[in-house]
């Protein structure tokens, strides 16, 4: 029997491939590097290389390879770039933090790159199995990172909880995949859609719908959709802060990328609109519960965790309306705005965190705006953007998703979103009030170093620029729409 080697186009997984290879090499190189700052810089170089690989393919026709399992289109590239940005800023945050916490070990950066690589694969996968494997792959990286501050019991607790919960949720995902396969006979997402289009009976099959439900649950857990969100605050609180920042931004972005692929390619609304309503209801719940719970927090990290839950709800508004023109742009625009802002917001926590001691109470922020002008100003930008104050990116993001939700007929969802935004302004502004208008007799010391400030500065600048350049950014991420299928 003749064995035929299939034609593979490695460029379809270019960025994640480069990152994986580079991370493997970096693990070895790191053995010979004494100064871990060098490892960090090398990791940044790898990220840049990974992002650059995709550049020639941006704006081109989508490419599919690996027997239809991998896909390279503008959506994937946009997600790749968002993830690159987030990871780069995370590395800048981590550099001095790890040293101060006495947990500076070279593996941190390769593991981070592996995880990012896995996240990118979520956007490149066109196959349910690929998505599942990528999800597991990135989870393993995150378990390690969450427990990286292992001398701290809280960090261990976070890693443990994340592992237990993750394993639990993964079961749902693989079971859902199995059911979908059982009905359609394929795990290829494009073929699933073709099957559904061709076969009326399949569309109402209980097995298929239950399978879809399980898939939504599995991904919903990753993006901390209510009621599958409860791990989020505990894990974010316990993990080393740069890792929390990374999880809140990158993991979310990856989860949303996968969700987008599933509903865009496998279960398009024109074929199977059934999922819209339940996702809309869960989105509403996510916004309301996330925002209301955030109000009651006095710990900044937990507050930011709930804020990240709430924003997942806002992003879901665009997912519900994904059939509308412009919805994918709004979706990606929001992800970019949210990722940069939430990531940056953790920086102030990093600056406050002393070796061994944890100062995460909102009252500890008192006066930091005056003592650390750059950090304070950046944090104010982030909070205002999260609250949705024009002309920052957060405002346009919210406006866009509410608009598409409204267009799609989900006016009540837009209304709930609007109302819960109002609630959210309270706890974001409370941070600003604490930073600038409160003073403490004994201010909590804060540490800022050049890399941290660079990371914060870049994030803040981008948030402002994205707001001012709303339209160009939309066009940049918007070419994906035509190529989406």
């Amino acid at each position, binding site marked *: 029997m003749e064995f035929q080697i299939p034609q593979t186009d490695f460029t379809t997984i270019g960025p994640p491939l480069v990152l994986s290879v580079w991370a493997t090499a970096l693990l070895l190189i790191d053995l010979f590097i004494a100064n871990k700052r060098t490892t960090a810089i090398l990791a940044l170089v790898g990220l840049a290389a990974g992002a650059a690989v995709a550049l020639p393919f941006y704006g081109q026709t989508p490419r599919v390879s690996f027997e239809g399992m991998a896909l390279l289109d503008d959506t994937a590239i946009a997600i790749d770039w968002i993830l690159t940005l987030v990871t780069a800023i995370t590395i800048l945050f981590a550099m001095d933090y790890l040293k101060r916490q006495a947990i500076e070990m070279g593996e941190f950066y390769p593991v981070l790159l592996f995880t990012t690589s896995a996240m990118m694969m979520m956007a490149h996968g066109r196959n349910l199995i690929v998505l599942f494997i990528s999800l597991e792959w990135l989870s393993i990286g995150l378990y390690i990172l969450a427990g990286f501050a292992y001398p701290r019991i809280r960090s261990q607790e976070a890693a443990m*909880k994340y592992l*237990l*919960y993750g394993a*639990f*949720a993964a079961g*749902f995902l693989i079971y859902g995949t199995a059911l979908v396969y059982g009905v359609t006979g394929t795990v290829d997402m494009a073929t699933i859609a073709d099957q559904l289009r061709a076969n009326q009976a399949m569309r*109402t*099959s*209980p097995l298929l*719908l*239950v399978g*879809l*439900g*399980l898939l*939504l*649950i599995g991904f919903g*857990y990753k993006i901390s959709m*209510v*009621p*599958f969100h*409860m*791990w989020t*605050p*505990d894990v974010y609180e316990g993990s080393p802060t740069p890792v929390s920042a990374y999880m809140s931004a990158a993991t979310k972005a990856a989860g949303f990328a996968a969700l987008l692929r599933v509903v865009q390619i496998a279960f398009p609304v024109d074929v199977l609109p*059934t*999922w819209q*309503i*339940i996702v809309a209801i*869960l989105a509403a719940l996510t916004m309301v*519960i996330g925002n*209301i*719970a*955030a*109000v*009651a*927090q006095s710990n900044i990290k937990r507050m930011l965790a709930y804020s990240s839950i709430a924003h997942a709800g806002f992003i879901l508004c665009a997912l519900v309306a994904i059939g509308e023109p412009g919805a994918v742009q709004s979706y990606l625009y929001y992800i970019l705005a949210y990722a940069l802002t939430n990531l940056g917001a953790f920086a102030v926590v990093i600056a406050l965190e002393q070796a061994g001691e944890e100062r995460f109470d909102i009252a500890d922020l008192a006066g930091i705006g005056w003592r650390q*002008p*750059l950090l304070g*100003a950046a944090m104010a930008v982030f909070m205002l953007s999260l609250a949705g104050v024009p002309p920052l990116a957060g405002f346009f993001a919210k406006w866009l998703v509410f608009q598409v939700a409204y267009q799609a007929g989900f006016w009540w969802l837009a209304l709930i979103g609007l109302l819960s935004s109002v*609630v959210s302004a*309270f706890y974001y502004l409370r941070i600003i009030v604490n930073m600038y208008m409160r003073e403490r007799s004994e201010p909590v010391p804060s540490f800022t170093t050049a890399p941290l400030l660079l990371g914060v500065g870049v994030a803040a600048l981008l948030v402002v620029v994205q707001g*001012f*350049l*709303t*339209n*160009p950014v939309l066009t940049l991420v918007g070419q994906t729409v035509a190529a989406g299928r």
Partner: protein
Amino acid sequence: MEETLFTLIPAIIVLPLLGALINTFLIRDGRRAGMVASLACGAAFVVGLAAFALLAGLPHEEQTHIDLTLWQWIDAGPLDVPFGFLFDPLSAVMVLLITGVGSLIHVFSIGYMAHDARPVRYFVYLNLFVAAMLILVLANNYLLLFLGWEGVGLCSYLLIGHSFERKEARYASMKAFVMNRIGDFGLMLALLALFQHFGSLNYGVIFPRAAELAGQQINWVLGPTALASAIAFCMLIGVSGKSAQIPLWTWLPDAMAGPTPASALIHAATMVTSGVYLIVRSHSIFLQTQAISNLTVYVGVATAFVAASIAIGQYDIKRVLAFSTVSQLGFMVAAAGMGAYTAAIFHLLTHGVFKALLFLGAGSVIHGAHDVQDMRRMGGLRSAMPTTFLTYMAGTLALSGIPIWAGFFSKDEIIGSAFHGTRFGTYPVSGTILIITAALTAFYMARQVSLVFLGQQRDTSYHAHESEPIMTIPLWILAVGSTIAGIINFPGLHFLDHFLEPVFEVGHAVQEPLEFNIPLAIITVVLALAAGWVAYQVYGKRQWKKTFRDPLARYLGVFFEGFEQRWYADDVYDTMVVRPFKATASFLSRILDPLGIDGLVNGAAWLVGFGGRGLRRAQTGYVRSYTLVFFLGVIAVLGYFGFATVR
């Protein structure tokens, strides 16, 4: 050539913005901040000069087409607003005034603010102001103009309240802000109406089609009105707020609570003239409505006269100048209303130079006299501050309209236009009032110079000294400028007329350059000299006590009291607006709010807090309880899908 212009224009705005950013984040030392700020503004001036030269070199008809869209700012359905700039002769001369005079004022401030508590903050605001003002004049659409309009308003507010430890500074900044908001509201209404009609706010769309506005009727407060009139009226409200015209003029004198150089830049040379700029820029719209154009003239003339009369009765050196500014703005607004747009811009430019000089001179006096502002406590400062005196004289002669100094030419052109007539006809009564006002101007300036510089020092409790070179050098430069600036539109040469012509071709508003009216000029000059001589006789010849009452009070009686008390405008506003407002507010805050609104809001807040605490209790930290919730979710989701299939 156009490409070069396209790179230069954004740089003009970015430079001061960069200065503000550098000072905000990197500089902590006041003097160094001043250097950075001056350098940024000076660089903007140099770039502006280069752009000006390039523009002047372009063929006549291409000069209005330097329209540069940086990016699409807002693109939401029908609303499409570019972030774009229009660099035409009108914006070019404005840019030169703003950055040129601005640079000198920045330099002067280094010396003036040396002993201030927050110099860095001051320079940040100053640079920010310059950037906002440049956006205002360079915008190619009304929304971007509005951004600058609001930006300068904000910076003005911040600078008036710079020394916020003083109660009157806080109060004055608030007053300025509120009054400006009223005006801004008018402008906003005008923009909405324009957008409703044209579906766009871009100059390039609106101005060529402005004639449509005259035919369109709308239902206005007093019955049907042409749309053009309604829009122009709303704009006029905005103008009266920003340029301190009747009825929204009382904030400007109080704005003198800010640092003197800031007053020179914002409340004399640039920001307050943006109302005039708005009318001239929107001339295509104003030309469609004779009624509102006439109203604009009356507002300007009335303001000019009233403010000049008040200036006679003031004792504070800066207040005299403040009312003088209001009065001169009245001249410009009147000219713009008549359709004498070039005359308005001409006076705007010369006034920008010589009024900045006077304010800086006053600043130098206040600085040298250890923060004394009451002119009754001064006197004889000529010997202690010779440079300040000399340069101040140049400004005084320019403002009083004495020949060869700049103000003579520009003011005469306005008065000449009133008598000679424009497309709207002649304004003989207004012109006569303006001549009288010009004489009053000479009177109060001569009075001020006499009281401050001539005679003997009346209050000898302080020792006046001349200011340092960093402050006097800008004074010299501005003094030279005030002396020769008339050249830019010298009768017979008409440089400015010709340069601005392309701008007015768009709205078919080009006027024949005005011929020099010699009898008129002789009348105004003789009147001005006579008024100045009288003032010198009254105030400069005698030795007063340091708490004297103005001798005019004896002769003018109740009229002079009116001047002193600013025609009671503040009291009237206080009784009619502020007090009823406060009473209503107090009623709402004591009775309605606690019961109604607060109850509702606090109830909602309580509900949110209660919900939050409840949710926090659910977050036990146990994995098993989390999985329970997870499972409930699973049941709900699968239940939904099950339900969906059964149905």
